[in-house]
């Protein structure tokens, strides 16, 4: 058993920032992470950090753009916090030595990005995430913060009062990948989940293979609701063969999209008459697939992104990394030919329901970054808004978990008696697992209500689960189940969604769940058993994919990144509300909470969202 004040799970941008903040607040903090920090997927972020730093810009404009981009499903207290805190946090990174690109006067460079009314995307070449990640890790090294790397957290230790709002998280259970040892980590003050997104639920994704929604699945099984999971961003410019991301910075610098007939379709077909290629990501992704579906795609699969006219000098200065990616992963020279691109799963707007201080409804459990839903991004995240979210809310969550006072949160969390329950006839019962021994983390029986008991039970349950998986001699291998799940999500819960398709996906996900009961790990070794690790991840993907599909089914409107064939308009009368899905016995499974559009000084009135 290990013991610290604050345990941060995951070591990407949000986790590192949370650890530094908790450390600065005086806590004994440790990071427990399945990847060494510098391997985290934050490092793949390319574009930049939105922050209102310059004259002519201010946080209110940033908040307005973000709210509009969210299609009025962001909560104003979260959106305004992001916009207000981003400048200071960005400059803080500069003070920590992050190598930002520079202007002639030596100040940090900013560039235009989709959906922004001011060029406020602060960048370091086309590898901003890499620099942010390494700069943050340097700060963790400097402070001597303990890092348990290649320790895979598989379960939260929570008490099991019937109502999740009464539960407390006392720590986590982790599996040492190098040795196979399973240990409890007691958190005296709090656990911060910063585990990233669930991109591997999809077949074609820009996300790393480690993005398996672990934190979301664990929080869900402990009783914390998942919020707005149906909102998945498909990035308009990923390379067709691998899903490798081509930064929005290419379009920000003036890159142009063409269809197979050489038409600049964003304008020619009126998808975005003002902003063209720099419309919001959801708009551009749908436009590209519409071109392909109407027979104007290149090879019936993708479109072209052309940056040749920018000239070699500018490309080398600001987008050099893109040349390498296009060449290494698609065999295309961006200086002499256009690059093939198509939409790829990129980001989950939804996640673990938290307030603006990073707290969930479970006492002592926090979440920040992509695994969380504050909610800043609502129905659609703007490019350049993910990195500021990591540093702004990572810091707040870490500080709060360490006992720091951020004041009363305005955003509510957890199921309450006055919320609206869903009355859709669901084809499946969410979260219904029937899978033992690795079922829920808290069964609501009220039997375990203290720290020692909850940790002991959690460790015991994980040892049983791992023993079972390793000792079972035959059955199904996880990779079969995983690829079936990924294919179903990409076929039916992608950019264009239909009721029939989503129902099909739910049926396949349920089959995956059933097949998973017979899963086994062929590799018998306790040493670096990635077979076992991936098998546990696949279970997390099943849980998370199910919530994505369920949300996509119940939300019968078109908002942000969520497009439904039968429902071609945004329905503000009915749907200015968040979708929440909880896995806790005796409570409704799908329910809703109204979005908060009242900001500090003004109310954000929903308007038609055009670019």
């Amino acid at each position, binding site marked *: 058993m290990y013991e610290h004040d604050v345990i941060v799970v995951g070591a990407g941008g949000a986790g590192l920032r949370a650890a530094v903040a908790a450390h600065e607040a005086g806590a004994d903090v440790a990071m427990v992470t399945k990847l060494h920090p510098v391997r985290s997927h934050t490092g793949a972020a390319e574009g930049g950090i939105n922050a209102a730093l310059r004259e002519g810009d201010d946080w209110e404009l940033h908040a307005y753009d973000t709210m509009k981009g969210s299609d009025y499903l962001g909560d104003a207290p979260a959106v305004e916090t992001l916009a207000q805190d981003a400048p200071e946090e960005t400059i803080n990174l500069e003070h920590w*030595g992050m190598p930002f690109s520079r202007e002639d006067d030596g100040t940090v460079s900013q560039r235009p990005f989709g959906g922004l009314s001011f060029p406020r995307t602060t960048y370091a070449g086309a*590898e901003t995430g890499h620099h942010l990640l390494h700069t943050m890790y340097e700060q963790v*090294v400097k402070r001597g913060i303990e890092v348990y790397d290649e320790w895979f957290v598989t379960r939260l230790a929570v008490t099991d009062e019937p109502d999740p709002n009464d539960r407390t998280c006392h720590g986590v259970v982790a599996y040492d990948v190098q040795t196979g040892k399973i240990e409890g980590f007691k958190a005296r003050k709090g656990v911060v989940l910063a585990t990233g997104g669930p991109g591997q639920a999809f077949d074609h994704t820009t996300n*790393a293979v480690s993005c398996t929604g672990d934190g979301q699945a664990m929080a869900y099984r402990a009783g914390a609701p998942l919020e707005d999971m149906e909102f998945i961003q498909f990035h308009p410019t990923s390379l067709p063969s691998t899903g490798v991301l081509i930064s929005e910075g290419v379009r920000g610098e003036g890159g142009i999209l063409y269809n197979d007939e050489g038409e600049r379709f964003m304008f020619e077909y009126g998808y975005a008459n003002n902003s063209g290629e720099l419309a919001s990501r959801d708009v551009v992704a749908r436009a590209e697939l519409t071109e392909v579906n109407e027979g104007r795609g290149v090879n019936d699969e993708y479109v072209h992104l052309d940056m040749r006219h920018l000239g070699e000098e500018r490309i080398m200065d600001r987008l050099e990394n893109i040349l390498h990616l296009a060449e290494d*992963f698609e065999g295309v020279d961006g200086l002499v030919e256009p690059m093939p691109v198509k939409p790829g799963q990129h980001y989950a707007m939804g996640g673990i329901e938290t307030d603006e201080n990073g707290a969930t409804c479970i006492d002592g459990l926090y979440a920040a970054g992509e695994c969380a839903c504050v909610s800043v991004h609502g129905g659609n995240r703007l490019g350049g808004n993910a990195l500021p979210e990591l540093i702004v809310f990572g810091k707040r969550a870490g500080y709060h978990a360490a006992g720091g006072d951020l004041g009363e949160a305005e955003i509510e969390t957890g199921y309450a008696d006055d919320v609206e329950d869903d009355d859709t006839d669901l084809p499946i019962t969410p979260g219904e697992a029937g899978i033992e021994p690795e079922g829920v983390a808290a069964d609501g029986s009220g039997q375990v209500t203290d720290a020692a008991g909850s940790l002991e039970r959690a460790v015991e349950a994980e040892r049983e689960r791992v023993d079972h998986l390793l000792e079972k001699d035959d059955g199904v291998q996880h990779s*079969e189940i*995983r*690829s079936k799940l990924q294919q179903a999500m990409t076929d039916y819960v992608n950019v264009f969604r239909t009721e029939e398709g989503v129902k099909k996906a739910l049926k396949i996900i349920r089959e995956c769940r059933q097949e998973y009961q017979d899963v086994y790990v062929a590799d018998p*070794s306790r*040493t670096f058993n990635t077979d076992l690790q991936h098998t546990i991840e696949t279970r997390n993907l099943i849980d998370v994919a199910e919530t994505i599909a369920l949300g996509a089914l119940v939300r019968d409107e078109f908002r942000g990144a969520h497009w439904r064939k039968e429902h071609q308009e945004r329905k503000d009368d009915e749907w200015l509300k968040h979708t929440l899905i909880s896995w806790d016995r005796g409570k409704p499974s799908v329910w809703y909470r109204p979005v908060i559009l009242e900001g500090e000084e003004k109310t954000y009135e929903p308007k038609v969202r055009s670019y």
Partner: protein
Amino acid sequence: MSTQRQKQPDEPETQEAPTDQEMKAEASPQQKRLQRKREQQSAREASADEGEPEEETVHLKVFRYDPEVADKQEPRFDDFHVPFEKGMTVLDAVMYARDHFDSSLTFRHSCRQAVCGSDAFFVNGKQRLGCKTQISDLSQPIRVEPLPHQEVVKDLVVDMDHFYEQMHAVEPYFQSEDLPQGELEEQRQSRENREKIKMSSRCIWCGACMSSCNIAAGDNQYLGPAAINKAYKFAMDDREEEEIKEHRLRILEQEHGVWRCQTQFSCTEVCPKDIPLTEHIQELKREAVKKNLKFW
């Protein structure tokens, strides 16, 4: 167990026979999907030009070792025959082998786009990142081994602890006493100075350079190219003051620092991010000489 032993080329080749039967995998959904993709691709190519739709396979010889599993305690090479797809990388190929033939095949990987630095392997006798090495650029059979000069944990996974220790030994964090006091005011840095440190800041900690370095192989305390390059990033950054730069140079010119480098350029040759590591080390040597002259 260290991969240094595997330097004798003939030794492991004798133990491959039992693995051939592993190649007969059931048609899983993933396999069907890949098959479908391949068919689509071939059809496209055939309709576009003449095309050559015949089935090609890639022959991999992959290093295997597991201290716990009886038949893997003695290192051996396993053969895998993986269907070839245009654009396939070494990482794609070993992932295919793992997902279809042997789920215990173990290696680190994550981002698949050469930024996480997890999958540096020894491929056909050279340190390379699996995810950015095209199969079509290699002669077959393709030998995939763990990085030499590091302890092997299992299969292609090596112990990175020593590498991380060396990275941490150079005080790898920005140090400046003189931050601007104004609200939201950044330190100024010229474009030229940013350009100066740009290449050094690209390091992804993959460890390929350290593994390729003869000096590091013989001197366990040698800081190594990656750590020295990390220090270069800070030492050349004008935002740090002169005293801090001198402090950094003192760390670098110690017994196991820059002077151990014999400019063999092996690190520079293998760096997947094209960082001019040897040049950076040389430049730091010159800086150290200049500072010493000043002191004397």
